[in-house]
């Protein structure tokens, strides 16, 4: 049967639209390469101490001494880690603004939490599995001025998301001098962090320096070192320095099970009882089950058999 074209003008219009649409480029942030660059940036969730919290049924006064000190140290460790890595979390949430085969750059863009400042985060691939990164800030008041570095780091990937070894160095001195404002409870001067997440135990070693009073001067600091490890079983360990109310400086090594039950040894580095070592164990409610405190034997209690069997991760 005859089949002459019907609605030829409509057909021509549809073809024109289709041809024009072909000129529209694809868009999106769907990239495996980007993931490798993002993978180089540490995530605070990978490194935070997961010491279980004290249950509400155990009042503070009933908690064992060293578990309480370990909780304090764990909070400080996590807080400082968060101060630094939170900035990177915000960066990682977005697609890089630019880049090529070796580099990805986030920004420059306004730092939402620091009005008046722009941020720029750069990740560079130096070898197939090795990356370096750099976090910088610059004041809006001097758009052509130099970028001030807050954080540098490197990462060597193994297998898995953010699995590998890395290190970072954070410094707030230059930014504070330039008028960059930090939260009132953030007195971070420098942080050096070395970590390994490629296999268990996952470890993080932190050297932390804090300003005594950053509002007064940017010279006087105090420092502390922490070592954190977690095993595949969920058992954790935290090593830290602790100054007691009696001005003793103790080197504490705490270990715990996923339930929270654990033990710690504290060796007096300076002050009364120097060289002595306290051993304390606690149960899942963080109540002491055993305490051997040579310089205060009246605080001794329990039986060492109540201590959980935990090997260092």
């Amino acid at each position, binding site marked *: *049967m005859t089949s*002459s074209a*019907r609605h030829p003008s409509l057909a021509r219009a549809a073809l024109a639209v*289709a041809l024009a649409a072909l000129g529209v480029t*694809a868009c999106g942030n*769907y990239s495996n390469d980007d*993931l490798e660059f993002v993978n180089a940036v540490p995530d605070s969730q990978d490194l935070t101490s997961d010491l279980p919290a004290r249950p509400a049924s155990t009042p503070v006064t009933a908690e064992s001494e060293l578990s309480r000190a370990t909780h304090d140290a764990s909070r400080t460790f996590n807080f400082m880690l968060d101060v630094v890595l939170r900035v990177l979390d915000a960066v990682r*949430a977005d697609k890089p603004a630019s880049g090529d085969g070796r580099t990805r750059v986030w920004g420059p863009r306004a730092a939402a939490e620091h009005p008046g400042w722009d941020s720029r985060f750069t990740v560079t691939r130096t070898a197939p599995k090795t990356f370096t990164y750099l976090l910088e800030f610059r004041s809006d008041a001097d758009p052509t001025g130099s970028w001030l570095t807050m954080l540098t780091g490197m990462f060597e990937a193994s297998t898995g*998301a953010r699995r590998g070894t890395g290190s970072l160095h954070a410094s707030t001195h230059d930014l504070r001098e330039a008028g960059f404002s930090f939260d009132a409870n953030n007195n971070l001067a420098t942080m050096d962090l070395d970590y390994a997440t490629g296999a268990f135990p996952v470890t993080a070693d932190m050297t932390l320096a804090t300003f005594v009073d950053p509002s007064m001067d940017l010279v006087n600091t105090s420092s502390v070192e922490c070592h954190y490890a977690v095993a595949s079983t969920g058992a954790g360990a935290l090593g830290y320095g602790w100054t007691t109310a009696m001005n003793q400086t103790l080197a504490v090594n705490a270990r715990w099970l996923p339930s929270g039950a654990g033990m710690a040894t504290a060796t007096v580095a300076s002050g009364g009882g120097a060289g002595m070592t306290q051993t304390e164990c606690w149960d899942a409610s963080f109540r002491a089950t055993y305490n051997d405190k040579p310089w205060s034997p009246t605080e001794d209690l329990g039986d060492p058999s109540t201590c959980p069997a935990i090997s260092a991760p």
Partner: protein
Amino acid sequence: MSARGRSTTLLVAFVAATLALDATARAQALHRFAVVVGNDTGGMDTRPLLYASADARKVLDILTRLGGVRSEDATLLVGATAAEVVAALAKVGGQAAEAARRGEKTALYFYYSGHAKDGALRMGETQLAIGELKARVAAAPVDVRIAILDSCRSGAMARSKGARKAPAFEIEADGPAREAKGMVILTSSASDEDSQESDTIGGSYFSHHLASGLLGGADRSGDGRVTLFEAYAYAYDRTVADTADSAAGAQHPTFSYDLAGNGDLVLTDVAARHEGVYFPREAPSGVYFLVDRAGFVAAEINKSEGVDRRVALAPGRYRVKRRLPDRLRVGELDVGAGRLVSFEEARLHDAPFSDDPVKGPGRVDLGARWSLGAGATYQSVFAAPGGASLFPTVGLIAVELALRDFLRRDWVLGVDLAAGSSSGTVTAVAAPFRFTELSAAASVSAEWPTRRGFVPFVGARFALLLMTRSFSGNSYPGQFFATLSPGVTSGLAWHASRRLALVARGRLHYLLYNVDGNRSLGYWELASMVSYDF
């Protein structure tokens, strides 16, 4: 001339006129019956026609309005079965026999427009052998039988003793009019030719020109009456001319007659109704198209120089078109009930070819059919860097809305939506992810219906893809990718019934991936679907 001679002359003229008038009157006094059949479908191994039913309605209108057939003596069968046609012929035969007993002379018009194949008329899933039809028409208890077939290879009906194929006639305008008795068969094509429909005129060529002729275009004698021979000659000339360059080849109507006497039967009286359009002799010569409100050609009139024409159009508004080498001449006419409107060239204006009223907006699209389908699709991206680590294979659920015979016969416009999800792992960082895809696409395909309801098709498709992936534990931010993807599609549909079809198809698409550099990728799909025709 003497007074006596003058009186003799007048007497002879009077007698001749009376005889002629008497013959004409006797011819017009025929009690006419009509069975008009139109069927667009002809079974699963044929493609639906677009205009057969419309042609039948047009012919019925002409026969009842101008052809002396009373409405109670006319039977219209649209989409009927063979049994219903046979029953209608039997009923009319009974009515004619009753009329004959009252001493009336009778005539039967049988008109069919539809499919014919392998020697039979195809009406839906039923068939009526042409030989049987001819026998039934021949056996009808009437004085004159006129059978008109507009279908492929209909000329086979005219092959019989005493009947001959006579493509053109010299109309015996001066011969004495004597009563015609017997059978006449008009067919739209020869026994080895296809009969063709035209989307331009909105009907089949033969029926269109036959109708135009019966409306007055064929009135060569100019007496306001269109005879059988005039109508056939007109339809033959116009049909051959219009189909000479068609893809299916020229179509030659046939005319066979087995009549006692050589009288020409008047089919329509366009003057008696005094309604329609009158083209005066001074109107420019050429082909005039009279287009109704629906955008279809109601009549196509070939007006000769210095000759007037009367076209008995039904009341309504019509657009008039005459095609010149470099432009159109167009205008409008209003035909009122009982009014004969005189055409005036001055009321036409020039228009570009793009303003052709025959293809204007508002035209009713007969035959466009909708269908809705649902099914499943399997998609796989190939040549992707990282393979499935980038775009994993995915299963999709799809729905499709399709429109057939809108742009062109046997062309299908389709719009489909699909959605699905799967999972994958980015091996470089060992990160599992959940992949989701949404696609919206438009396609145009050409179909080739075959026997037993199988319909292969090939087409082009244009898809908008939106792909997203999310990583477990929020280890990485979610990602998305949107792109336009051209492709080709091919497959096979099997019509399990008139409305239900199973469809299997394959697609091949191009995909531009431009996030990690510009890369030309592609994907293939296998899909199956159940489709329902409305």
